[in-house]
């Protein structure tokens, strides 16, 4: 019988080793599944993980793909650390795009100096507004934030679909569900590097994402707010005795996650699309959940985790073109990766041994 004893001290080597082992096992299982379904395992691996980064400009694209994931996951880290299960970041991202889109479409004449900050602010407000619905319902009525935030994602997706097909559609779009293009001032520019010039699609939003992750790491590890969040997640009763307000923490982390997701939506549209369309997000809000876990709920780790998952996402695009696989296959990798990471967490937390059956039970609630 398997026996699990909590570890008193988690060695650093284990902390770093776990994600690596999880990634390796994910690849092994993924290849096995592809093999079973009749795809050549090594072709699939190459297409997924090597082809997308075989040229320098593709490195830039990798960062671009990681950008919304890093931003959104940084916000989600705060939620998950506080044991608040916001899984509706996708909807919050969409509302960030909608709010900033409203600003961009209504004030096209503003110079970039004022339009860009206004759009950033609007996107953050949009994301927070959408996140406040599950947050306030949870605080006020104790409703389940998982289900509410998820249902709101479907609502948000339908809402933007209505906007771009209905009231916000560009009359000159020949019937396509697209809004007008943003003015140049509302677009995020590519980074013009010295000597090499632009590197793929690499844009200034990526720098923002990296800074945000670092700032998130600082808030979580060095401020009283971060401390409160961690205590409320790990030991809510201790937090209450310490005088922390659980409701305020819930609202706070939801606002952080919603605002971050909203910002990701704005950057994604302004940097890569230039106008609103029915699909402003390709599941980034859900993928960011995996990024947050791969990063072991650490904002600095989110940067690396974001790049790794972005590679799988790009690989999905390549596999679609080269192997004719549907785009959702990345979901197979993402799902297995999350399974492996969660299992790794247990091996970290507990010392697992094989022993004779138990006599006295001790249970451990989370």
């Amino acid at each position, binding site marked *: 019988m398997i*026996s699990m*004893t909590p570890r008193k001290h988690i060695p650093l080597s284990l902390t770093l080793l776990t994600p690596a082992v999880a990634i390796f096992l994910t690849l092994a299982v993924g290849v096995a599944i592809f093999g079973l379904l009749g795809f050549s395992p090594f072709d699939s691996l190459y297409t997924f993980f090597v082809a997308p980064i075989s040229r320098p400009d593709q490195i830039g694209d990798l960062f671009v793909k990681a950008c919304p994931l890093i931003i959104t996951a940084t916000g989600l880290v705060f939620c998950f650390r506080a044991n608040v299960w916001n899984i509706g970041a996708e909807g919050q991202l969409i509302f960030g795009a909608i709010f900033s889109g409203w600003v961009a479409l209504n004030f096209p004449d503003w110079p970039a100096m004022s339009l860009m900050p206004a759009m950033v602010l609007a996107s953050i407000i949009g994301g927070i507004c959408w996140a406040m619905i599950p947050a306030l*319902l949870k605080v006020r009525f104790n*409703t389940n934030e998982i289900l509410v935030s998820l249902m709101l994602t479907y609502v948000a997706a339908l809402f933007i679909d*209505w906007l771009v097909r209905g009231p916000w559609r560009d009359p000159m779009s020949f019937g396509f569900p697209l809004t007008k293009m943003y003015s140049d001032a509302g677009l995020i520019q590519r980074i013009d590097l010295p000597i090499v010039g632009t590197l793929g699609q690499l844009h200034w939003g990526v720098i923002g994402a990296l800074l945000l992750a670092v700032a998130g790491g600082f808030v979580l590890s060095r401020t009283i707010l971060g401390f409160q969040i961690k205590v409320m997640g790990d030991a809510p009763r201790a937090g209450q005795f310490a005088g922390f307000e659980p409701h305020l923490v819930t609202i706070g982390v939801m606002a952080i996650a919603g605002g971050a997701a909203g910002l990701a939506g704005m950057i994604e549209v302004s940097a890569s699309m230039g106008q609103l369309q029915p699909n402003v997000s390709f599941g980034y809000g859900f993928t960011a959940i995996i990024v947050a876990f791969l990063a072991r709920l650490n904002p600095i780790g989110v940067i690396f985790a974001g790049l790794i998952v972005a590679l799988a996402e790009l690989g999905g695009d390549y596999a679609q073109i080269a192997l004719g696989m549907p785009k959702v296959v990345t979901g197979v990798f993402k799902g297995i990766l999350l399974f492996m990471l969660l299992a790794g967490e247990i091996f970290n937390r507990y010392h697992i041994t094989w022993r004779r059956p138990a006599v006295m*039970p001790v249970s451990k609630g989370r």
Partner: protein
Amino acid sequence: MEALILTVLLTSVPLIFAATGELVAERSGVLNLGVEGMMLMGAVSAFAATSIFGNPYMGILAGALAGAMTAAVFSLFALGLATNQVATGLALTIFGSGLSGLVGAPYVGGTVDGLPNLAIPILVDVPIIGNLLFNHDIMAYLSIGVLMLVAWFLNRTRAGLVLRAVGNSHDSAHALGYRVLLVRFGAVSFGGLMAGLGGAYLPLMLTPHWSEGMTAGRGWIALALVVFASWIPSRILIGALLFGGITIMQLAGQARGWTVPSQMLSMLPYIATIIVLVLIARNRDFALANSPACLGRLFISNK
């Protein structure tokens, strides 16, 4: 009008299956958020099996099996390794959505023949209600049968009592010598089987084709239905019919040329779910009276 009511009944069948299965799993103390993924696996397997064998009954079987197998993946991690149930359930949904898309890719665009209706003799000739209630496919009857069976099992059998005990206090149940993990494995597998059946119903009866993510959040609505039913099986029927009605309202609205945009009507089931969750949660005593005390908590036996 009769056609409308029939559609409402058909729409609620997958919800009844999935919610009943999840209710059993939750009563044993396991929160499996992977219903959507299990339903998708059930749907794609049912469609594939029906296309291959040309027989929708093989589809039912394949759907149920696929659901149970997907649930076994959840059990492996959440029960075997005691991983966080919320995150593991999410992983299962992501995994199921991806794998179903991969498996189903060759079948996109195809169609299959649905299940035949089996009229119950004599009863079907009863005026007004006869055709509504007694002229359905086998899965519609089965969904009601399973619901009644589960209600009986949970409240009237010894095994049902053990299952509820495991869900309410896994430590006590363990101390009494019951195999907590085994009971939970059974409950989760049953939940997967039911979710698979619910998923199978979509391509077999509701829309005779396969498309990625065709469950469109039904798995999540089934999870909400369990909360709505406050963990009492009979109330699932009411909830499922209610949601079936709301889903159909959008079709009826379009048919009658309502001026409301179609997207707004499509939002109704999701908004209704939120409203229902709030209404239920407001009355804490009612909402939590039958809520399993150990729901979502990890069970780890030491020493």
